[in-house]
């Protein structure tokens, strides 16, 4: 903190998804005083369980249905290199500088992932993966998805390190169809030209209360309990074999997933994995958000549960957050990190006649520099579903320290930072870098905010890399 005995200074982090949590935890680790203001969960709580970092580069498609990349799936670091060269407006450009410094980018990603793993480990949520190898994970419908890193429960489903895969049939479970999964999976593997992976369906004899008739959420909650865990383990006993993966629906516990998976692996002798699931069954996003919340609590970070209505403060003043809690409470801070997300998280809003950033009315740009705020959402939407959509790659533009720029092209405020999906210039669903951006920019913004508190920062934006 500042060496002359002044008040250490307070940072408000708005948003508690992966970006906000990363920023707050980084700030706390740097000894800053943090208050985290968050209303409700955002996109982090809806992820399927993979953490995309390396991206799909423009020109190198995401895993297509047809076999365009037959047998030629690029490694994460190769994809990262391509991505860096081909995406100049992506937030990575602000984080890692020019596209030449691949090594630095790789080191920072690996370091960030280690930190994240440390944050999640106490909740039993493991983080698997590296930039040196791909994982290929099956989703609930049976499509295959490249993953750089993945959360423990889904990492077990990796087909690249399995010698056979058995899908666990729960016929009464909403949203799960083992046969359709196997059929689709077989086709995907064939289209990729991967070696033949024997697929089968197993039908464990489940007690009635574990058949999932009340839906996946209730089953997952039930499986947190030791007696249910034991019953399921008994049902899968002996279903395993050397190199076999048992693929489950997204129901392997909400809080006690780690002991459950361990018990299932011990009983069956197989590796256990969950299929990647999307809303309304995105259980891994739920687990990730809960683990982050626990990490924030453990770090003793002050938490205010409220949505923010507006943020005020210009140039170098103190910043003030006005809460949308009915009383209009105010929180003052010396620096603010906006990690409010996009439309799901509420960081961007599509009001009646215009899209806008609600807290500060920051200008929003898509990857091509088009302004998206101030005009109706439908005007930034293109006709073809598969076309590029300015509306969905829009966010704030920042300087190298992740300070959002006003329409004059200069940082809106010397100590206002942005992280996560709020950053524009990329389309998370197409480019496969969503959580990578959240984690890395969250850490970067946290460091930048801590640095800004250490000394009087001028309003001018100095070009600088990572502090």
């Amino acid at each position, binding site marked *: 903190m500042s060496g002359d005995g002044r008040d250490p200074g307070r940072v408000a982090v708005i948003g508690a998804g992966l970006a906000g949590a990363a920023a707050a935890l980084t700030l706390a680790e740097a000894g800053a005083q943090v208050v985290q203001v968050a209303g409700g969960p*955002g996109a982090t709580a809806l992820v399927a369980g993979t953490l995309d970092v390396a991206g799909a580069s423009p020109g190198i498609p995401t895993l297509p249905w047809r076999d365009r990349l037959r047998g030629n799936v690029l490694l994460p670091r190769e994809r990262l290199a391509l991505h860096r060269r081909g995406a100049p407006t992506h937030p990575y450009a602000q984080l890692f500088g020019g596209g030449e410094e691949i090594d630095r980018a790789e080191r920072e990603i690996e370091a960030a992932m280690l930190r994240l793993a440390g944050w999640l480990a106490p909740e039993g949520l493991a983080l698997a993966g590296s930039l040196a190898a791909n994982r290929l994970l099956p989703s609930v419908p049976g499509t295959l998805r490249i993953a750089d890193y993945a959360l423990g429960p889904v990492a077990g489903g990796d087909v690249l390190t399995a010698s056979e895969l058995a899908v666990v049939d729960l016929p009464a479970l909403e949203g799960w169809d083992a046969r359709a999964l196997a059929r689709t999976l077989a086709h995907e593997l064939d289209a990729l030209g991967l070696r033949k992976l024997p697929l089968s369906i197993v039908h464990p004899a489940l007690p009635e209360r574990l058949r999932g008739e009340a839906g996946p*959420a209730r089953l997952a909650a039930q499986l*947190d309990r030791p007696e249910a865990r034991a019953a399921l383990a008994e049902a899968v006993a002996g279903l395993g074999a050397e190199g076999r993966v048992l693929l489950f629906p997204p129901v392997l516990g*909400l809080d006690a997933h780690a002991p459950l998976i361990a018990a299932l692996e011990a009983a069956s002798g197989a590796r256990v994995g969950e299929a990647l699931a999307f809303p309304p069954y995105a259980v891994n996003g739920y687990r990730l958000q809960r683990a982050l919340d626990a990490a924030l609590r453990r770090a003793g970070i002050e938490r205010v549960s409220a949505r923010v209505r507006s943020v005020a403060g210009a140039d170098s003043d103190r910043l003030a957050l006005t809460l949308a809690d009915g009383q209009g409470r105010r929180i003052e801070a010396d620096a603010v990190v906006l990690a409010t997300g996009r439309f799901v998280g509420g960081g961007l809003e599509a009001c009646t006649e215009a899209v806008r950033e609600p807290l500060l009315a920051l200008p929003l740009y898509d990857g091509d520099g088009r302004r998206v705020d101030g005009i109706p959402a439908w005007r930034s939407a293109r006709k073809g579903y598969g076309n590029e959509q300015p509306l969905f790659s829009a966010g704030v533009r920042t300087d190298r320290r992740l300070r959002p720029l006003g329409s004059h092209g200069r940082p809106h405020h010397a100590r206002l930072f942005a992280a996560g999906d709020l950053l524009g210039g990329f389309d998370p669903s197409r480019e496969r870098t969503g959580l990578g951006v959240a984690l890395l920019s969250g850490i970067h913004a946290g460091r930048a905010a801590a640095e800004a508190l250490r000394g009087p920062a001028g309003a001018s934006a100095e070009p600088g890399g990572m502090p």
Partner: protein
Amino acid sequence: MRGYRGFMREFARTGSLRALSLQLRTGAAHVVRQWFRRKRSDPVAQFMAYYGPDGVARPEAETRSLALSAQDCLVCGLCNLECARVGGAPAIDPRDAVVAASRLEVDWRRLGLAPEPAGACTGCDACSRVCPAGIPIHRLQAQLLAPGAAPASDATPGRIG
């Protein structure tokens, strides 16, 4: 008579003698009724008598504001997960309660469709706190179970719900 021009335009559009005759007859009867100022019964009560059996209920401000909130649902399913985690087992899942709340002031009991009170949500509001759209789901649950009048008879052909 206001709208003289409008009247003349409408009159000029009259397409047939039958229409003309109908208009004149009805118009005359109307004028006579107005003249004698026959006391009309309470029209709101009349409205509810007409449409109540089909399930229409009187609008409530609370219902309206809840519906405006419920419309933000993303069908993310977090409410179901959180409800299950805290041990809830309401007869209607939180997610389904948000969908069902599209009926506004439909009197579920009149249509014989209200869930049994035994399966009621406890109102712990864990679901509301986890909702990204901030929907007060537990209040929607309460609304679905709000007491109404006696069930409709079989003779009612219509439905609003």
